[in-house]
């Protein structure tokens, strides 16, 4: 049965692969456009959406707005009917959650397709496997209409974009973006990393600029009568010792790396890269880095770090939620998730935040978060098709307060959510269906909103107000360094190991200078030079 099939298949296949190996080729990578052209790209005009009034407004500096409740009468986002009628759109993207039910059994997805006007075919890959899937898809040459690109791992990014993907400048630059009002509502900071080859090549997936705080389990601190806002390293260290209680299996911190980052922010250390007069310094080669490693080492020696903190990965959230650790630096979006996942298990569960104080007193700093999770790139296509896709993505970026936003995040009223006052409460079916990763195609700017417990939103907003004035940006964000793309991953593994070795006490602190010297020689200086060049090009 299979033998004839295979023989026939073999002939077809042998010929096919010969063709396929060539077919994937698209010339020699397209014309190389000097990066200096990027300085002249006109970014989309920022036209903020003025829909819902709130006492916790956004700010130009990057404060994320907060809302206690959803508007009782959501604005119709697409008053003229489905905007993107036409052929189906394939979107290749990733997911952190379990995948949602397929479209045939997914009310929310069906309704989304109806409101957009076409079939959005999400091709979903688990997040850890995405780089593999991305590479074979590119190599195969049979691209989906739109696909997510991780900024940190795309090798030869500009050449790849030029040869396979659409330059969207004529649709999005400057005032052209007015055709897509919800995309225009995305702040400029999120557009900057979408620039390559002198054009706009991608759509943003905007995230909060504030970065995340060191979350604290207020209930645990309160239980011991401790004040969870130390004002210096000395006080923080004492606080860590006071909250640690091995008998109760309770420790201060879990993840040594994020703890290190917290101390770096206390020391006013650079956020990945520091820039001064166009000269770049990497955060790990600074004096602050050594000081921070030493500080974490002290915490480790004092037994304030979870004893499995160095050997176990991917458990920190669970430890924090379960009270094994009292502090955990995390992304800002984790705030709501902690309550959703863990609050019901512990009576009095309450989360606060700790602003990194200055190491020797005074204010500390706050590392700015990445303006995008990743970006969405679109396959080369005729103008009309590109417009259709952009209109669909515009619909996926409809902001808070609209009916389209409600549909994306909370599904269809009835099967997916019920109303409590004006606020949606997800049903079990809804919880499964809304994991459809529209958030990893594009999205509206994020907001602070948690209908299950509106009372936490003011606290979140308070953190925004405190954090944003202290933000330290990463000057390399959105810049492209080929060496960094190709080599930073490998360097990171080895360096993280050494860094952990020092913090754990396996390696003496004195070894770090030599390690950094090797890093500079291996790739660091090349990466630095490329970033400096790219920075100069961008700012000339």
């Amino acid at each position: 049965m299979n033998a004839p099939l295979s023989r026939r298949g073999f002939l077809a296949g042998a010929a096919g692969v010969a063709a396929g190996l060539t077919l994937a080729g698209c010339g020699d990578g397209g014309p190389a456009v000097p990066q200096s052209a990027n300085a002249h790209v006109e970014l989309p005009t920022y036209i903020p959406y003025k829909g819902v009034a709130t006492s916790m407004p956004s700010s130009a500096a990057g404060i994320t707005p907060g809302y206690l409740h959803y508007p009782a009468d959501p604005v119709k986002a697409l008053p003229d009917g489905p905007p993107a009628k036409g052929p189906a759109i394939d979107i290749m993207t990733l997911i952190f959650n379990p995948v949602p039910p397929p479209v045939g059994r997914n009310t929310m997805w069906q309704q989304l397709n109806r409101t957009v006007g076409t079939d959005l075919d999400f091709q979903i890959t688990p997040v850890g496997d995405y780089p593999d899937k991305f590479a074979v898809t590119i190599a195969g040459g049979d691209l989906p209409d739109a696909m997510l690109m991780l900024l940190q791992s795309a090798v030869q990014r500009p050449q790849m974009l030029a040869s396979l993907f659409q330059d969207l400048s004529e649709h999005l630059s400057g005032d052209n973006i007015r055709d897509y009002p919800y995309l225009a509502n995305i702040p400029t900071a999120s557009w900057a990393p979408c620039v390559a080859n002198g054009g706009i090549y991608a759509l943003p997936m905007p995230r909060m600029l504030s970065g995340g705080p060191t979350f604290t389990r207020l209930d645990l601190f309160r239980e011991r009568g401790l004040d969870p806002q130390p004002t210096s390293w000395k006080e923080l260290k004492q606080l860590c010792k006071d909250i640690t209680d091995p008998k109760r299996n309770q420790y201060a911190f879990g993840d040594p790396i994020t703890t290190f980052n917290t101390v770096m922010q206390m020391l006013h250390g650079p956020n990945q890269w520091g820039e001064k007069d166009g000269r770049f310094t990497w955060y790990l080669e600074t004096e602050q880095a050594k000081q921070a490693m030493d500080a974490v080492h002290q915490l480790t020696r004092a037994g304030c770090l979870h004893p499995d903190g160095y050997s176990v990965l991917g458990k920190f959230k669970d430890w924090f939620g379960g009270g094994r650790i009292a502090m955990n630096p995390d992304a800002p979006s984790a705030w709501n998730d902690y309550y959703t996942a863990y609050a019901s298990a512990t009576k009095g569960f309450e989360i606060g935040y700790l602003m990194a104080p200055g190491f020797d007193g005074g204010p500390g700093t706050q590392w700015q978060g990445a303006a995008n999770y990743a970006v969405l790139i679109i396959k080369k296509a005729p103008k009309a098709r590109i417009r259709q896709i952009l209109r669909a993505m515009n619909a996926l970026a409809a902001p808070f307060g609209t009916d389209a936003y409600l549909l994306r995040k909370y599904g269809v009223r009835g099967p997916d959510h019920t109303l409590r006052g004006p606020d949606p409460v997800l049903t079990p079916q809804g919880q499964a269906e809304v994991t459809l990763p529209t958030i990893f195609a594009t999205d509206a700017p994020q907001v602070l909103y948690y209908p299950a417990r509106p009372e936490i939103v003011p606290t979140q907003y308070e953190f925004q107000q405190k954090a944003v004035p202290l933000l330290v940006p990463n000057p390399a964000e959105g810049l492209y360094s080929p060496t960094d793309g190709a080599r930073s991953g490998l360097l990171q593994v080895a360096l993280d190991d050494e860094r952990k070795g020092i913090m754990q006490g396996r390696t003496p602190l004195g070894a770090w200078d030599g390690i950094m010297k090797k890093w500079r020689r291996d790739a660091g200086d090349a990466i630095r030079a490329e970033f400096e060049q790219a920075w100069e090009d961008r700012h000339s």
Partner: protein
Amino acid sequence: MTTLSPSHPVRRRPRRSYSAVPGETPGSPPWRAAKSLLLLVCVVLVLLPFLAILSTSLAHPDQVNRAGGYVLWPDHVTLAAYRALLSGGLVSRAMLVSVGVTVVGTGLSLGCSVSLAYGLSRPGSLGHKPVLMMLLMTMLFAPGVIPGYLMIKELHLINSYWSLILPTMINAFNVIVLRSFFMNIPRELVDAARIDGASELSILCRIVLPLSKASVAVIGLFYAVTYWNAFFNALLYINDAAKWPMQMVLRTYVVNNSALGAGQVNAAAGAPIPPAPSLQAAILVLSVVPIVLIYPFLQRHMNKGVMVGAVKG
């Protein structure tokens, strides 16, 4: 577990003289006791973690969260995790896909492998050595991920279930092991059949296969388990999540939140919370149970192997 008590084998002793099962005569009581104890320890060491997985899948999420992971015994049994998994339709669909791919794949693989192993079972036959070498080399050199993908794409098998079967249809290890079992069949039997004028096909079907039930069953099991456990081809070749096999679905529950998943992404960029450990445990149970059920069924063929006159080393 009480059946494992050392005294038990003794009671069964009379049966073994007419059992067709090969085995050595039992040793002295202390020896037997030691052996039983050792096996008992092994069984407990294996069962304990499985008990933890099962308990976690049945426990209330709050208990699981307090424990910070697996629990050894659920305070209250709840099927909520299973209900949540099976309600979306994705998991039951994935189960069907996995069963289908495993059944069809194992059938095809066994057919191809038996044929290949039999064809290689007599040194000196036409093409014997080059084909054997060719087979061996596939164990040592792996085709790259990208060329494999291009092949599947050129055959228009992207998004087709065949892409989950054809690339892994022949496993050199299995064929070589099967071949060595075939070669152990006494030559005289084969020669006698040939003298009677039997064709190769009828020798294979009437002599070799019946005498190799146990080994064919084992190799079949190996193939079945490989098909069942495979996810990488599905990851590369199946774009539509509705067509995913069980292992891919499992992956989104378990692996995404592990070091493997987290290592490659910017952790600060706002990763949603992992699903509750009870969900992870429940999907683990669902993904393990069907394939585990095969073995007891096959054991019938394995343990009552057909007697062969003399077996050479």
